[in-house]
């Protein structure tokens, strides 16, 4: 690209692309501070009312019926958040353990079905979530399992195990097997070598996989939508329900807080990665 006009055009196009990605998020953040409750596209003045309402700081008893409805949905929102965190926590723990074990098995052992496993583990990631969601729904109903937190956790683990597997496997590929060979030559048992030599070296990869699993589990909508019981709504499903009923200023405030949370998590992930290379 030695042509300055061409480069300038390319730069303009690229900056436009990033604007396309970020402008919608900025729109939400901007309107979450707009006091106009009727038409949020018309700027009235700056307010924190929507945040106050959400965080339960607004008066609980009010003569305005609308207000009462919002406050009720605040309790539901916090419940949904609690459920999301519980689900994501359990999912992360389970899928990290299974995914890591699988990655070690497939990278460090020789066996006949290895090629099959490598291909098979791609499937849960590539299967459209709606197919997996309804498959699990029919399965749980057929075996008579009550839809609950547990069914959501199982649903998330089916595809997140593969994500953890991929990340940990990539990490193992970059390791020097000589250390494990030395450990084995010096008389350590297989378990000991695994625990004391391989796992510590894998820790950053495992942490990265766990973080990814947590983030995806927190955000999963489709599978949760099908396998969640009436009493186990997660935050994305809760917001999906609100969005389906129409645009409301409260959604802007929830959405803004979620955007901020996601930026913090992403920055944390980046910081963790940069520390590892030190």
């Amino acid at each position, binding site marked *: *690209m030695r042509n300055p006009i061409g480069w300038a055009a390319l*730069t303009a*196009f*690229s900056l436009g*692309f*990033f604007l*396309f*990605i970020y402008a*919608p*998020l900025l729109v*939400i953040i901007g309107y979450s501070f707009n006091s106009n409750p009727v*038409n*949020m*596209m018309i700027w009235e003045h700056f307010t924190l009312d929507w945040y106050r309402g959400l965080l339960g700081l607004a008066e609980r008893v009010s003569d305005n019926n609308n207000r009462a409805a919002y406050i009720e949905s605040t309790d539901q929102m916090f419940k949904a958040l609690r459920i999301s965190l519980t689900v994501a926590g359990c999912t992360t723990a389970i899928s990290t*353990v299974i*995914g890591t*074990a*699988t990655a070690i*098995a497939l990278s*460090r*052992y*020789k*066996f006949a079905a290895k090629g099959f*496993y490598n291909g098979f583990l791609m*499937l849960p990631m*590539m299967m*459209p*979530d*709606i*197919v997996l969601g*309804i*498959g699990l729904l*029919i*399965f749980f109903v057929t075996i008579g399992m009550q839809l609950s937190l547990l069914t959501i956790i199982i649903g998330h683990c*089916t595809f997140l*195990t593969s994500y953890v*597997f991929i990340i940990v496997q990539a990490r193992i590929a970059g390791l020097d097997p000589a250390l494990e060979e030395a450990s*084995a030559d010096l008389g350590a048992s*297989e378990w000991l070598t695994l625990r004391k030599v391989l796992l510590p070296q894998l820790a950053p990869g495992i942490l990265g996989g766990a973080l990814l699993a947590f*983030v995806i589990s927190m*955000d999963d*909508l*489709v599978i949760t939508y*099908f396998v969640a019981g009436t009493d186990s709504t997660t935050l*994305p499903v809760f*917001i*999906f329900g609100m*969005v*389906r009923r129409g*645009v409301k200023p409260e*959604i*802007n405030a929830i*959405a803004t807080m*979620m*955007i901020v949370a*996601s*930026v913090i*998590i*992403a920055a944390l992930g*980046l910081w963790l990665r940069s520390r590892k290379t030190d």
Partner: protein
Amino acid sequence: MAMRRQTAVLTALLSPVTLFLGVFFLLPLLIIAVFSFLTPGLYGGVEWAFYPWNYGRIFGWADGIMEIYEPIYLQIMARSLGFAAMTVVLCLLLCYPVAFWVSRLPARWRLLFLFLITLPFFSSLIVRLYAWLLILKPSGLLNTVLLGIGVISEPLEILYTPAAVVLGMVYVMVPFMFLPLFSSIDNLDRALVEASMDLGATRFQTFIKVILPQTLPGILGGAVIVFIPSVGNFIVPDVLGGAKGLMIGNLVEQQFLSARNWPFGSALSMIVMAVVLTVLLTSITFAKRKGGQNA
């Protein structure tokens, strides 16, 4: 490599994933296949009797008594394929130049823009779609701005159209296209590009003959990763599409949660599964053949 023979440790490492995915992944997929051939019950359940007309309603061999063939299902399937293909092409057209640009930036800026492209992975899908609802609705930001500066005199009706669905899908899928594309553009052998230019090829010839073939793996990878979740998507058309933006995912969802015809819903999702497996197998075969040629 420290390759060891099959041992008790290997069995211990491999059995959790085998059991878990066997029971909670393979079995559910198998059950969908079985259900798609069962008789829908009167009140939402199933009767365990063979019933070929779930597929007949879709493909045309319905008996006309119990079930009627409706061409609309194939039309919606074709539309879903079309939307997914358009999403792939638009993502590619957007990402290719940008990936090129990012790969030519100084190291610090590269990192910043790569971070910016991965950030949406961390933010909620439903929040990102909701943003477009705010922008596209008749009294939304786009119309307010366009009316305000006098470009249009009537509000544009974009929301609840196919265009809104494709726009929404492009928006949520674009990072998935960018990353594989970027890694292959970044690995481009610049010496070859320079050689081509020095030998008198035009920019266009260089692009077609040198750059495009080298970045084909990234294009293919990105296309598959974007196409598959797009074709079965139901959240984007649910939020942004109206009746004309309905996709096969919406049909499946309706059969399970409102119409309560699970066997028919299973038959529909078997078609989604068939499409996905076809795309996957084709791309794997293609990639293998390509790899074989280069080796």
